C-alpha cells in the first residue's frame, strides 16, 4: 500500500499558510520530477494488480453464470445462455434457502447487536479492571480453528437438544460476529469526545438523554459498519451452519456444498452471484458512509 500512497502527488491539500503553498509550487529539479513520475507509474501498476486480484474472480463468476460452453484456452465463452439461471430459479429449495439465509442472518445480527452493543459501550466508555483482558479475550476466540470449535459446539447442542433447530443456527452465526460487534462499536463509543457529553449535561440533559442524543448518535457510523459486517458474516456463514443442521434448514452457503458436488460449475456460479447480491445491495445502500470516510472512522481503535 505504501507504493500506492506514494504515487499520489502530495498536492496542497490544505493551503492555509503561504509557507505550505510556496513549498509545494516551487520548481522541481528534473531528477525529482523523474522520481515522482516513477512513483506514479509504480503506484498505478500496483493499483491495477490489486483491482485485478479482487475483481478477477468475480468477473470469471459472472461470465460462467451466462456461459453455455467454455473450454480452457479461450478467454471468453464460446456460446452464451440463460439456462443456468432458469435451472437454479426453478429449484424451490434453492429459492427457499435464499429467504431462509436472509431470515437467519437478520435474526442473528439483531440478537448479536442486543448482546454486544451494551458490552461495547461498557468497554468503550468505562474503565474497569480486566477491561483489556476482555477485549483481547474476545479477539482470541478467532485464533482457534473454527472446525474444532464447531465440533465441540455440536456436541453441546446434541446434549441440549438444540441440534437441527433454528436456534442452533442463530447461535452459531452469532458467535462469528461477536468480535466485530464489540470491537468496532466500542471504538466508536470511545471516540466520542467527552466535552460533547459535558456540553449536553451542561445544557440540562440527564445521562440518558445525553446517551441517546449525543453518544449513540455519534457512534452510529461505527455501529452501522459493525451491523453490516455482522450481517454479511452471518449471511455467508457455512461451516458452523453445515455442522448443526444435519437435515433441514439449508441456507444459501450450505447449499453451495450440495451445488458444487451435484451440479455443473455454471449453476454454482449463478448461485454464487445470487449470494453476492444482498451484499452488493447493502454496500450500495451504505456507500455514503463508506465514501464519507465513516467506515474508516468505525475502525479507529485505541
Amino acid at each position, binding site marked *: 500500500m505504501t507504493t500506492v500512497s506514494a504515487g499520489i502527488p502530495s498536492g496542497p491539500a490544505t493551503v492555509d499558510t503561504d509557507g505550505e503553498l510556496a513549498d509545494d509550487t516551487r520548481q522541481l529539479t528534473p531528477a525529482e520530477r523523474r522520481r515522482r513520475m516513477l512513483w506514479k507509474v509504480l503506484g498505478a501498476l500496483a493499483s491495477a494488480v490489486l483491482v485485478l486480484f479482487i475483481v478477477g474472480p468475480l468477473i470469471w463468476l459472472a461470465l460462467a453464470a451466462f456461459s453455455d460452453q467454455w473450454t480452457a484456452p479461450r478467454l471468453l465463452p464460446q456460446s452464451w445462455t440463460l439456462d443456468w439461471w432458469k435451472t437454479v430459479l426453478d429449484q424451490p429449495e434453492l429459492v427457499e434457502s435464499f429467504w431462509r439465509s436472509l431470515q437467519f442472518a437478520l435474526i442473528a445480527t439483531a440478537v448479536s447487536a442486543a448482546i454486544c452493543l451494551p458490552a461495547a459501550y461498557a468497554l468503550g466508555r468505562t474503565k474497569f479492571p480486566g477491561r483489556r483482558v476482555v477485549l483481547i479475550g474476545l479477539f482470541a476466540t478467532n485464533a482457534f480453528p473454527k472446525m474444532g470449535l464447531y465440533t465441540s459446539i455440536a456436541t453441546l447442542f446434541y446434549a441440549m437438544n438444540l441440534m437441527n433447530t433454528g436456534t442452533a443456527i442463530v447461535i452459531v452465526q452469532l458467535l462469528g460476529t461477536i468480535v466485530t460487534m464489540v470491537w468496532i462499536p466500542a471504538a466508536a463509543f470511545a471516540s466520542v469526545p467527552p*466535552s460533547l457529553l*459535558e456540553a449536553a449535561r*451542561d*445544557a440540562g440533559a440527564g445521562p440518558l*438523554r445525553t446517551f441517546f442524543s449525543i453518544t449513540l448518535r455519534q457512534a452510529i457510523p461505527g455501529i452501522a459498519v459493525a451491523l453490516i459486517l455482522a450481517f454479511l458474516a452471518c449471511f455467508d456463514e457455512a461451516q458452523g451452519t453445515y455442522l448443526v443442521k444435519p437435515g433441514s434448514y439449508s441456507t444459501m452457503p450450505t447449499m453451495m456444498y450440495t451445488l458444487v458436488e451435484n451440479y455443473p460449475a455454471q449453476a454454482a456460479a449463478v448461485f454464487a452471484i445470487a449470494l453476492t447480491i444482498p451484499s452488493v445491495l447493502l454496500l450500495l445502500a451504505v456507500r455514503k458512509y463508506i465514501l464519507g470516510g465513516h467506515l474508516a472512522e468505525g475502525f479507529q481503535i485505541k
Partner: protein
Amino acid sequence: MSTGPTGTDSAELSTDQPAAPSPAPNTRTAAPATGSGSTGSTGATGSGPSGAAPGAVQADVAPTAGGNAEIPAGAEGLRLSRISKILGGRTIVDTLDLTVAKGELVCLLGPSGCGKTTTLRMIGGFLQPDKGRLTINGKDFTFAKPEHRPTAMVFQNYALWPHMTVAKNIGFGLKVRKLSAAAIREKVDWALDLLSLTHHRDSMPARISGGEQQRVALARALVLEPEVLLMDEPLSNLDAKLRVSVRETIREIQQRLGITTVFVTHDQEEALSIADRVAVMNNGKIEQLDVPAELYRLPRTSFVAGFVGSMNTLDVAPRDGGVPLADGTVLPCERMSGDAGDAVWIRPEDLVIEPEGAPGSTRAVVLRVIPRGHYREVLLQCHGTTLRSFTDTEPEAEQAVGVRATDALVYADGVLVQQ
C-alpha cells in the same frame, strides 16, 4: 522634555503598552468605557465592580484593598468558600475563596496547572470539590450535577455537536427543558441575531469558521439564560486578530445582558482587556484578585508581577533611594514602593530615557531598538546590567543616553513591600 510615558497621569495609559503591543492599544481602555453604559443594566450599584471608568473603578471599589472590596450580600452572584480539590494525590485547588458580584466578569488567570480550569469545572459541576462550599445567588450548588445548575459553559474546543445544525445546537438545551417549538424558535432567533449568526442557522458546525463556531458555542450558552456563564479559554483556538474582535464581542454582550461570568485564560493581555477583576492563580491559590489597572500598577507578589506585563527584574536590595546595578552604581528611582527588600522590579515604561547627562539620570548605552509601532522597546546596557525600556523617544543603537526610573516595586521574599 522628550520623555516617554512618565508620571502618574500617564501611567494609566502606559499600562496598555506592554499588555497590548499590537496596533490596537486602546482595547483595554475601551472595555471599561463600554462598562459605564451598562452599569445600570448589570444591576451593580455605584459600588459595584463594573464602575464607570478605570479611574472610577479604583476610587469606588478599591481605594486601599485593590479589588477585594466587600460585595454586599444581595449583589453576590457566585461564591466559592474554602474550595479544595485533590486530583491524583496532588492538591490542584487549595482552600480557594472567590466571590463574584452579579453581572461581573472575573478572569481566572494563571499558567497551566495553576488550578484555574479545575476551579471552573467545579463551578460547572463537572468536578466535585473535596472540601468547601459553592453558592450561586445564595443557593448551595456544591454537589449538584451539571444539568441541575444554573450555569452554562463555553468549552475551549467549543464542543459543538457535529450532527446538529447551528440552530439545533443552540436549541438543544431548550428542547431538553421541553419548551414549545415556537418558544425555542424565538429564543434561538434571538441568540442567532445577538451573535450575527442568522445566515448560518442551518449550517453544520464543521462547515463554519473557527470564530463562528466560537460564537455558536456562546449563543448555545447564552440561550439558556444562565445565572453564571463559564468560559474555558474560549479564545485560545482563534488567530490573534480574531481573538481581539471576539473578545470585544464577548465583553459587549456580557455587559449588555449583565451575566455573572467567570472567564479562564492564561493570556494576561486577554484577562486585563476583558475583566472587571482578575484573579491571578498560582499553585491552586489566588495570589491577587484585583481590578486590571491595580493588578498592573501594584502586583502584590513577584509571581503576579512577573506574570502580568513585562518587568526589569533586579534581584538586589534597594539602596540610597535607588537600585544598585552590577558595578555598584545606583540607578535613581523617584518613587519606590518601600525601602527594604531583596528585589527591585521596574516596569519598562517606568524607565525613562533622557539625553546623556540629564540631571538625576545614569549613563547607559543603547544595545538595540525594537520598533513596536507607536512606541519603541529599547535594550540598554547600564553599568553592567541590561535594562529594557518602552519609550516614545527615538534613540539609536550604541548611542549613550541617560536613564532614570520613575516607579519601582520592592519585594521581600516575593511579597510587595509597601509603606
